């Protein structure tokens, strides 16, 4: 059997935030299938445990682990970093979205979404670096979005600005950590079939699909495969890149 696989994640340890569902769970599954072990974190304790149980066994000899944490809470974030062994990959994937027209934005909602989507990934990256938990040759991947970075849409101002923030942070970290042999990139999905887009009606979704040349939204796996590529040594010379995975949505 030909074992050539530059996309292998064999022996790597990957920390995934927002692990209890959607893109996070699909990423965990893909990483394990490619030979990694995963450490999942999420704020939803029951869903996180159920996800961990549903995953295949790690082939690395070390078990997959999970740790419940609210990453907007400094103590819980610090506890996660202490719990975490040294990692080869980080997938900052946890995020929320709420559509609000600009004149209805409240400071509370703005602050809540910024803390989850922007502050938490920045502070988690900071703490992992400070505690020297990221191995040389490591790879950081942020789930950004086509929103904000490539396209804006009505009512999505808060979410879009947090994703622009992630884009700028991702490129900054790529610049700072390149000399240490650590890479940093993002995936930028359009609409993905996850709970995040639950606020759209079926009718809205069907209409929105007409904006996608491939005439469907992404499945979580479509994004997970991009993340796995960026975690793998196949992307050894790729850093500071925003990888659009949007079915062609932003072309027109």
């Amino acid at each position: 059997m030909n074992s050539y696989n530059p996309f292998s994640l064999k022996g790597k340890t990957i920390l995934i935030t927002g692990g209890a569902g959607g893109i996070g769970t699909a990423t965990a599954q893909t990483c394990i299938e490619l030979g990694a072990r995963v450490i999942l974190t999420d704020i939803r304790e029951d869903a996180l445990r159920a996800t961990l149980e549903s995953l295949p066994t790690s082939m690395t000899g070390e078990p997959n682990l999970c740790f419940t944490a609210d990453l907007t809470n400094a103590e819980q974030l610090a506890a996660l970093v202490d719990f975490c062994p040294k990692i080869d990959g980080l997938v900052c994937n946890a995020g929320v979205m709420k559509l609000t027209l600009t004149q209805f934005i409240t400071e509370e909602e703005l602050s809540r979404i910024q803390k989850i989507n922007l502050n938490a990934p920045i502070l988690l990256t900071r703490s992992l670096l400070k505690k020297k938990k990221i191995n040389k040759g490591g790879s950081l991947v942020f789930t950004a979005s086509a929103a904000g970075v490539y396209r804006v849409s009505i009512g999505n101002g808060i979410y879009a600005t947090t994703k622009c923030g992630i884009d700028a942070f991702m490129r900054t970290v790529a610049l700072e950590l390149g000399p240490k042999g650590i890479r940093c990139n993002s995936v930028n999905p359009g609409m993905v079939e996850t709970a995040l887009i639950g606020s759209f009606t079926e009718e809205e979704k069907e209409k929105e699909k007409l904006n996608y040349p491939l005439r469907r939204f992404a499945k979580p796996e479509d994004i997970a495969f991009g993340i796995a590529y960026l975690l793998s040594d196949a992307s050894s010379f790729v850093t500071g890149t925003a990888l659009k995975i949007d079915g062609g949505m932003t072309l027109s």
Partner: protein
Amino acid sequence: MEIKEFIEHFAEQFDDTELSEFKPETVFHELDEYSSLIALSIIAMADEEYGVTLNANEMSAAVTIEDLFNTVKAKAGE
């Protein structure tokens, strides 16, 4: 403020340099791993640990780790 502790904080900013290389008399600009990014880390460390803002001139004027320690110590006492 102890020089031993200062050297530990100084060394934490490096990844590849052996701990035994960090002594009071080490000419830190000549360490292979020393770079402008590490210089920024050391400036941030001095701010975080000692509440001292080092400027670029003070960084280049210090030859050894002990020189830098003395600069930080003097400024911390101001």
